[in-house]
């Protein structure tokens, strides 16, 4: 299969990635090749096979739903690109 440039641009938008035209062209070629390779999975008979979502399902413990201490506010803000008082500062979300 071959992806179109606009399909690649659409995926980049979904992934919130700003890509150059050169990157769009390159990823179009490379993703098409990888998806071609992955197409061999379509021939595997799986109509009776349930999807495997975890390699450890047999041993997954459930924890009690109890409040426990988390990251302190100052520690959480320490890596913020911009913060003010106890909050992350961001550009306007609404006009």
């Amino acid at each position, binding site marked *: 299969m071959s992806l179109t440039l606009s399909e*690649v641009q659409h*995926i*980049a938008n*979904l*992934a*919130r*990635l*700003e*890509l150059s035209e050169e*990157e769009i062209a*390159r*990823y179009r070629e*490379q*993703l098409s*090749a*990888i*998806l071609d*390779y*992955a197409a*061999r*999975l*379509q021939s*595997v008979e*799986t109509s009776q*096979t*349930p*999807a*495997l*979502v*975890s*390699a*450890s399902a*047999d*041993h*997954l*413990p459930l*924890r009690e739903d109890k409040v426990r201490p988390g*990251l302190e506010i100052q*520690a*959480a803000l*320490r*890596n*913020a*690109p*911009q913060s003010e008082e106890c909050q*992350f500062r*961001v*550009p*306007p*979300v609404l006009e």
Partner: protein
Amino acid sequence: MPAPETLSIFDMLAGLRRGDFSSVELTRACLARIERLEPALHTLITYTPELALRAAAEADRRYLEWRRDDPSATWMLPALLGVPLMVKDVLCLENVRCTCGSKILENFSAPFTATPVQRLLQAGMVVAGKTNTDEFAMGSSTENSAYGPSRNPWDTSRVPGGSSGGSASAVAARLVPAALGSDTGGSVRQPASFCGITGIKPTYGRVSRYGLVAYGSSLDAVGVFAASVAETALVFASMAGHDPLDSTSANLPVPSISLTSDPSLKGLRVGVPQEYFISGIQPAVEAKVREAIAQLEALGASVQAVSLPHTEYALPVYYLIAPAEASANLARYDGIRFGLREPAEALWDVFKRSRGAGFGSEVKRRIMLGTYALSAGYYDAYYGQAQKVRALIKDDFTRVFEQVDVIACPVAPTTAFRIGEHGDDPLAMYLEDIFTLPANLAGVPGLAFPVGFDEAGLPVGMQLMGPHFKEETLFRAAHAYQQVTGWHKQHPAL
């Protein structure tokens, strides 16, 4: 103080207990070796000598107390007190930066310590630095690190493998006796093989992932490198076990791993899967692995052919599932709470520009691939079908482990390749992982260890895989092999 590169972890612990040298002396000797060889190898992203010397001084204080109070009570000493360690830069260590080999986290200072690292700190280990990795552990060579590639100490024009290549290079060069890595598709085992050392990818859920920066959450495992199996097992045992902070951590006891000097493998059933000896495999790799299997047989193991018929699908399954999980996990890098922010007028543009500028090309490629595989209209055909075939791959292992105790096979189809050799051909690079991916998909443990050299003098590794939570069986078999061979004692000339 003997040269640190001549000492095993056991030698170090014995010397520290006897008082032949202090942890500060040992650590200073390792730091001097790091400073001498680092320009040639580039194993580290962040070097932490002050932190190491503080931890070493604390270890010495504890040895002093023990010697003064009750020198007969060695059980009171933490298991690895005063022994140097390096940590792959995808595992958090509080107040030290954690870059994941990415520009997007260049200035990120970890607010807490990962559980496996915390346990090794409690066991007394001394962290000398954070090691180089392919960006977000996506790669097989460290060439995808935003901080430049690490080099293989056996031939510095070659890669050490990846993604945990900095850790493998450092242990192979004996800068430190042990290092932590992470393995999502082979990122501990393949660099162990390329660098001629031992490396374990534990069972999924055996070692906590808390504080490991997520890549493919259903596949990620924290592993260890050391020169020998016995040293690897010692460090593994100190960090394994249940952690309530990781919801996928198995609530099972970790057996104490007892390795004896008796190399008999009588009763051990070894399976050799035909699907792992394909055309295209480097002849020296196949030859050395077959010799090692013969050695296991000579030690008393019974060897039989087995079949894992869905092996050929592991690569396409992995390269849909891992990128899909990565595309979700890496959504957190949005320039808001931490990491790089590229300024823009609108919030939407902050996301796009920060991610576009902060991620390297392999990370973007996998985010794109994963986003596509999860997108409306393609989910069932790609991600859904991959999960079903993943179930078939896991079933293959379940069936084979009814017949045998371990599976023996190559780690990688080749020995270490040259830096730049795979250029910008992602599929060629992905093929490096064909023998290691299945263990991650099935969640079973895999152990890589050296079994010889190719004609260019580059190490060849063998992989043993076992049933879930049977790391001990792998350690015992490989330890028996190392009792009668000397490949793990070979050092690169540096």
